[in-house]
């Protein structure tokens, strides 16, 4: 564990609390899925929490976020309230998108959260455009684009990195490399498995980060954003991480060994950071129990919020297909 001199108790509590919120939210989603409350594809973030929390901790309100279909953790860490997020899982009218998006399409204007994009690689060009808008308006914000290593095989990855680098746009590309594109191991899809080296080929400053270490992710993000905000153009992080659960719910995980999963679980980002925080005397054991309790209550309230929500009226089926005006 990389020791960070400036980490204080409040900071540690925030990081750990966010990771626990995500973990419990995702576990509840799995449960609700088996009960038929959540349908469609459900991709859980369990095991990868340090990435979302580390990255989002370093962002400001001016920054925008483009995410993937495994975005619940990103959304929670970015500050989207858990109730509307859970209601979106249900497809209820009180969900973030009024239920129209579901698990894979979380959007939130207030936190500049631009989806929830379920076409692998499809979000990268959007982030280039968000970065371009920021540049053209001389804003301070960065466009932060999260994607998995599966996206790296898509043409849009290469087009976007090239364009962002060519125009020196304030885009932070964050590759969450969890080693599997659905069931395809990275060795089976990439000729170059060191993803960050692909960014280097576009002359984009890149770092490889331990994605199971929340502090390392936060520190790397802060460093990258510093360069980015200094006008040095796009930055790239490759976070090495692992998902503990299946790709989506109906996945028998025929493509990986249980022993591999168990080995990675030993590096569980929550347990690891909790233990370290206690050892470093930043947190007390009771703090951790309190955080877990608070998160469990919040999850219960989110479920109650979703359960209480109404279904969108069928009469509104065609709403927002065409917009009447650009939202202010």
């Amino acid at each position, binding site marked *: 564990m990389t020791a960070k001199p400036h980490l204080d108790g409040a900071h540690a509590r925030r990081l750990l609390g966010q990771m626990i919120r995500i973990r419990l939210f995702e576990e509840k989603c799995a449960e609700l899925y088996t009960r*038929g409350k959540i*349908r469609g594809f459900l991709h859980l973030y369990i095991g990868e929490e340090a990435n979302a929390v580390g990255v989002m901790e370093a962002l400001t309100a001016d920054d925008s976020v483009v995410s993937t279909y495994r975005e619940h953790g990103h959304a929670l860490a970015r500050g989207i309230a858990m109730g509307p997020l859970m209601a979106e899982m249900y497809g209820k009218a009180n969900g973030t998108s009024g239920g129209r998006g579901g698990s894979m399409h979380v959007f939130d204007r207030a936190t500049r959260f631009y989806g929830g994009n379920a076409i692998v690689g499809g979000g990268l060009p959007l982030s280039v455009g968000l970065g371009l808008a920021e540049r053209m308006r001389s804003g301070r914000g960065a466009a932060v684009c999260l994607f998995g290593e599966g996206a790296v095989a898509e043409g849009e990855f290469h087009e976007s990195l090239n364009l962002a680098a060519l125009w020196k746009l304030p885009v932070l590309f964050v590759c969450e490399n969890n080693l599997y594109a659905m069931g395809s191991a990275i060795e089976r899809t990439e000729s170059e498995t060191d993803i960050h080296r692909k960014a280097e080929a576009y002359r984009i400053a890149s770092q490889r980060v331990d994605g199971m270490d929340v502090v390392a992710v936060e520190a790397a993000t802060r460093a990258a954003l510093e360069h980015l905000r200094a006008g040095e153009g796009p930055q790239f992080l490759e976070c090495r991480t692992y998902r503990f659960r299946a790709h989506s719910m109906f996945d028998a995980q025929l493509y990986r060994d249980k022993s591999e999963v168990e080995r990675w679980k030993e590096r569980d980002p929550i347990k690891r950071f909790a233990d370290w925080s206690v050892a470093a005397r930043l947190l007390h054991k009771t703090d951790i129990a309190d955080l877990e309790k608070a998160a469990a209550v919040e999850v219960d309230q989110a479920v109650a919020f979703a359960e209480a929500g109404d279904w969108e009226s*069928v009469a509104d089926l065609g709403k927002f297909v065409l917009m009447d005006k650009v939202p202010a």
Partner: protein
Amino acid sequence: MIDFRMPSLGADMEKGTVVEWLKKPGDAIARGDVVAVVETQKGAFEIEVFDAGVLREILVAVGNQAPVGAVLARIESIGAGVPVGAEVPPPAPPSPTRAPPVALKPPPAAPSGERLRISPAAARRALELGVDARGLRGTGPQGAITIADVEGAAPKPSEAPTPPRRGFDPSAMRQAIAAAMARSKREIPHYYLSLPIDMARSLEWMSAENARRDVEHRLLPAVLLLKASALALRQVPQLNGFWIDGAPRLSQAIHVGWAISLRGGGLMAPAIRDADRLSLDQAMAALRDLVTRARTARLRGSEMMDPTVTVTSLGERGAESVLGVIYPPQLAIVGFGAARPSPAVVEGRFAVRPLVHATLSGDHRASDGETGGRLLAAIDRLLQTPEAL
């Protein structure tokens, strides 16, 4: 006690086979424990529990299949989270208010013989003009009959409305009825009302009256219905007249078109002019005259054009009631079924009375059921005092 159910792992999972129980009854269970392995079409899944407790009972043994949602085991709970509604997958979807599904009917059997090749527009025009398109030669694409072909075959407007003075052509009449009735049903939003009318007094009064008359001057029940209808329309004039150019045009005069079915088939409704002002004897004479001339094709053209309303009476051998089709552009048609001895309540007791079902079909563009109801009530009242007719 908590039901541990076959989980739904995807919309395409319907059932699973239990291939292993990792816990046995009596075992303590922690949230997240894998308790069973279930084989599906996508492979074997370890099934975890989301509750803590003690496994009490296994209901589906290894090797057995169970549908999604089936209870696999029961767990005695120790502490629980927030209740999550009914735990019955698959989820109850929102019940959308949707239009009833369109019933899929088998296509109608092709008519025997050659199908008439006519454009949709020409077919509609032929109906409007009462033109029988079957004999026409088509000049359109692939020899189809076009609007121009139909209009060329139609009688010129000046002669069109005048009915032939003698010798009805049954097929031409059928076409005319078809055109008028189709137009009516296409254009006129009908509403329908009915009222059973006790005819006892009218019929008794008529029998007594007829006993004093010679055969030639005897009255028929029809004339009472005719006269009562005409007088009632004086009280409710909103149903007497025409719908022209999008508005009702009420008529002062009450010319009752009396529906007469012809022996060779077909139907016409020539006018009994000013029927409300005729005495019963005059009305009876007019009725006899009209029926005779209608059946021998000696009607005057004006008699066909004049009616401001239509009355149809099915007579003693007819059906119990008739829901008439309005003759455009009239506003209403009054119908009478056959008078039949029927159970009725008279002064609080059951009695057998001769009841006639009076009906009204009204043009809803021109009037509402409330108005129509007043007309039927007026007819009823008038028929209770036949001597005043």
